[in-house]
């Protein structure tokens, strides 16, 4: 670690900035960041390999989850629910 206090402070600030931007990568991947913030993250991504890998990870996990088969309600559950709406009471 550097013994120069100014350099140490600068390194600390960079780490804090990196941590803050790193947390925004998911929102960036999901198109949920407003324009200015988005551009700041974009610029950071050009220089930060770790955040580039984080972006790939966030996108891959999100895509894989979106592809997961969602269970569909059985005919019997659907009938029981429609029955509840008929008479106002659940049928067991």
């Amino acid at each position, binding site marked *: 670690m550097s013994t120069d206090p100014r350099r140490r402070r600068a390194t600390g600030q960079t780490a804090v900035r990196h941590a803050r931007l790193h*947390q*925004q*990568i*998911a*929102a960036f991947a*999901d198109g*949920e960041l407003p324009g200015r913030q988005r551009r700041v993250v974009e610029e950071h991504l050009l220089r930060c390999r*770790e955040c580039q*890998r*984080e972006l*790939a*990870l*966030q996108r*891959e*996990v*999100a895509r*894989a*989850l*979106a592809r*997961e*088969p*969602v*269970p*569909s*309600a*059985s005919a019997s*559950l*659907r009938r*029981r*629910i*429609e029955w*509840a*709406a*008929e008479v*106002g*009471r*659940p049928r067991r």
Partner: protein
Amino acid sequence: MNAERKRQSFQSITLPHLDRLLAAASRWSDGQEAEDDVQETYARAWTAFHQLREPAAAFSWLYRILETVANERRRTFARRRDLFPTTELEAAHEEIIAGDGPSPLDSLLSRVEAGRLLGALRSIPRPLAEAVALHDVHGLKYREIAQLTSVRLGTVMSRISRGRDLLAGLLAIEGKRGE
């Protein structure tokens, strides 16, 4: 509203969300229990239908009822059995993003069985799993998730980010064990 109109309105507004609610219930409990929770949710929704002011918000409204039903059954305790130590998941995630070579995630995800990733949501803390599922599985926007779960937008952002990180860590650990 007369009974027939109420029934028609209830069914047309709430039934389109049935599969999504079952998917949500299945994250907390299995098979028959998940169906029971959903049925109970619809029974309560029917009784309280007059309280639904905005039909477009029906999914959020039904989801809140489902959460209450699931909490009442104390499912959280059952879920905790599946929780994986987060420090291990965090370490595995760090390893993925700090590495120099190609990310192992591609190959891990291509090998994962259908449905396994949804099941893996039970292994990470519930608030994170909920935010990730509401976004990635149910397609809600961050703002909608914030409203639904009564947290700030920044919290949703960090929960989704961290939740996916932990899932990736879990896949990496499972991948190593399977080698």
